[in-house]
């Protein structure tokens, strides 16, 4: 148990920055639940609990990283009951992170019930809203069922987000992003199924969570044995797919090193979820613009590995740092133009199909372009490992993009609204140019000793 608690503590409090997020998150959740009893709940207070849960989730972002590193390693197999303890720590962490919002909801319902009861006792309830005992009991049962229903959703959403985070942070390649997007695709489908069927009970909820835990746990614990058994096995179809995907790209070796040689994989994993989303009724302009803007930043985000990957180009090629920047920039734009083109085509296609307002397309197309430019140069600015400054800047840029997307989607098409959106997009364009200039200047004095792939990735590449 000691090891499980230590691991959970490490996930939540492992580094100074994450510790800050965790403590802030817990404080906000506690404060929100405390205020529930004393204050009416305006929107900002509901947001406080949401941001608290989000901060708590971010604070435990070390969990997928540490879990991935330890699970893939060999040391864990020598530690007494290592894999079982690691697994238990993960389940506990996911449950702890998933619990606050459903719990707040339950407390809120409970308090509402008590207050209503007290009002009734004081005779303050008017006759037309008086609730009899049977209705009260139904409400109580309903709120408990609602708690389990929310907990299931929250649990699976947390698992999905951690999985996405794990794929993206552990692989740091298009394949990693692809797997992350596939998880998001799965998450988009499962909650929507649950929304259609609100009959989840406590039993059903627990069965879902238990089934997932059992399957994941069994898979995780048996994985080393399976791996040892299947070592040396070759699955012919996979090998042939690998040969097709990995066909030689003579003359574009730099693209291969940078991971920009083949844009079709990324296009595929972006287009499929979007097309899938159209089948489950996402026709809100705000949602579309929101998602497409997020997706358009993915291609650029891959650029954050450009510096460490181009180390090998600089060591072996005859480029100066400035020339290398131009080469890398060109390579990324060649790659991103395909991805961006497909997203814009999708936007126009879906917009026409779903009869979205033309003003949305007019505002949306430049926004996609700007977000790709911003994320690409933000990525290129990472000439050492991702540090606090880059992380904070990325968060600010993402929030700004989201804000503009929502404003654009909500604008009524009046000239005033259009002017605001255009002005905001102009500001973002200037920011993109500033980021390019910063990236260029950083590349000019890049220190190749500090700019190298993560050690765990180097080890895996060597293995």
């Amino acid at each position, binding site marked *: 148990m*000691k*090891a499980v*608690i*230590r*691991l959970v503590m*490490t996930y939540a409090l*492992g*580094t100074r920055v994450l510790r800050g997020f965790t403590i802030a998150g817990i404080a906000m959740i506690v404060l929100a639940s405390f205020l529930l009893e004393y204050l009416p709940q305006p929107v900002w207070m509901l947001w406080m609990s949401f941001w608290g849960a989000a901060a708590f989730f971010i604070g435990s972002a*070390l969990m997928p*990283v*540490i879990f991935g*590193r*330890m699970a893939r*390693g*060999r*040391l864990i*197999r*020598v*530690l*007494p*009951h*290592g894999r079982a*303890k690691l697994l238990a720590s993960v389940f506990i962490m996911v449950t702890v992170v998933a619990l606050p919002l459903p719990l707040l909801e339950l407390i809120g319902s409970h308090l509402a019930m008590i207050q209503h009861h007290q009002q009734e006792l004081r005779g303050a309830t008017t006759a037309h809203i008086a609730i009899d005992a049977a209705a009260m009991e139904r409400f109580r049962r309903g709120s408990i069922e609602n708690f389990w229903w929310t907990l299931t959703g929250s649990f699976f959403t947390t698992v999905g987000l951690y999985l996405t985070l794990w794929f993206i942070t552990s692989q740091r390649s298009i394949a990693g992003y692809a797997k992350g997007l596939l998880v998001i695709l799965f998450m988009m489908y499962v909650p929507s199924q649950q929304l259609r069927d609100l009959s989840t009970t406590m039993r059903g909820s627990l069965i879902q969570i238990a089934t997932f835990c059992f399957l994941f746990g069994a898979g995780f614990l048996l994985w*080393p*044995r399976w791996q*040892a*058994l299947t*070592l*040396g096995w070759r699955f012919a179809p996979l090998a042939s797919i690998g040969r097709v995907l990995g066909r030689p790209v003579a003359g574009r070796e730099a693209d291969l090193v940078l991971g920009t040689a083949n844009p079709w994989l990324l296009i595929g994993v972006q287009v499929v979820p979007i097309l899938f989303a159209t089948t489950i009724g996402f026709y809100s302009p705000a949602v579309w613009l929101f998602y497409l803007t997020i997706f358009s930043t993915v291609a650029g985000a891959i650029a954050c590995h450009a510096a460490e990957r181009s180390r090998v180009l600089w060591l072996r090629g005859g480029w100066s740092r400035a020339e290398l920047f131009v080469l890398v920039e060109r390579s990324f734009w060649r790659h991103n133009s395909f991805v961006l083109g497909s997203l814009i085509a999708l936007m126009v296609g879906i917009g026409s199909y779903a009869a979205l307002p033309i003003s949305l397309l007019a505002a949306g197309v430049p926004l996609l372009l700007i977000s790709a430019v911003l994320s690409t140069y933000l990525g290129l600015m990472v000439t050492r*490992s991702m540090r606090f400054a880059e992380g904070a800047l990325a968060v600010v840029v993402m929030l700004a993009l989201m804000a503009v997307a929502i404003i654009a989607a909500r604008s009524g098409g009046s000239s005033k609204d259009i002017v605001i959106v255009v002005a905001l997009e102009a500001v973002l364009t200037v920011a993109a140019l500033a980021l390019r200039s910063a990236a260029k200047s950083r590349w000019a004095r890049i220190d190749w000793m500090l700019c190298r792939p*993560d*050690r*765990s990735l180097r*080890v895996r590449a*060597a*293995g």
Partner: protein
Amino acid sequence: MKNTTVEASHLGKAYGATRVLQGLSFSVEPGDVVGVLGKNGAGKTTLLELMLGFTLPTEGEVRVFGHESTRMPGAAKARVGFVPQQDELLDQLNVADQIRVIASFYKNWDGELMTRLCEEWGIRASARIKSMSVGERQKLSILLALGHRPDLLLLDEPVASLDPIARRQFLEQLVEISSEGQRAIIFSSHIVSDIERLANRIWILKEGRLFWQGDLDSLKESIVRLHLRGSIPLPEEAGIPGAISIRRDASFPTAIVRDWSDSAQVELERRIDGSVEVQPLGLEEIFVELHR
């Protein structure tokens, strides 16, 4: 009852058609310090992996503290320490947190030993692992394997990235640990001098087989270089009993032989009508000659 730490019989491992190890039988007793030698790809790491149960043998079995290595219970694992070739430290943590994480898995973690070793080895508890050098990381990896005072310590190329001072400290530490009596240590290394200095038993892996297992003195007595000085040249087809290699290019032939005995020497001297000078070899020379 005999308290064998590791015992293997007819152990073998193949990956598809490639046989990495075959027919290995050995036992390791408490107090043994075994040095595993072999060229790159000889199967040293695979052998350690088999002992730790990371991979399944394709023939035979290996038992650790009486348990099949692939099914070691937690109590048996608590008696094993392992230093992998590539460290598996958590980059995001600092040294103190990393130690705390590993320590939490053991009931008998020796915090005082850890503190002392960290001081002696110059590892700061507040240092962030990501910013540590390869050598420092390796030191920390080794320390983490020692903290629970394991009865069996397996080290896969532990000193490869250590500087000479750290290597010396590590070897001294290993000597101290091995002198505690009930502990068995198995370590693979390319640095033959370290094995020569530390190991009381040597395993030499060659072409997937355990070419030699025994103590260093027996090895040195068994494998020697012969300088033949005779009036009758050694005929081309004439063999020398136990010869591993014969060189005829010099004015006097030389040979490396195994299991050399006085009677064999008398017989050879009679055949060449001269003298046979027996030269003992260092471990490094033996290793090189075996792989020539």
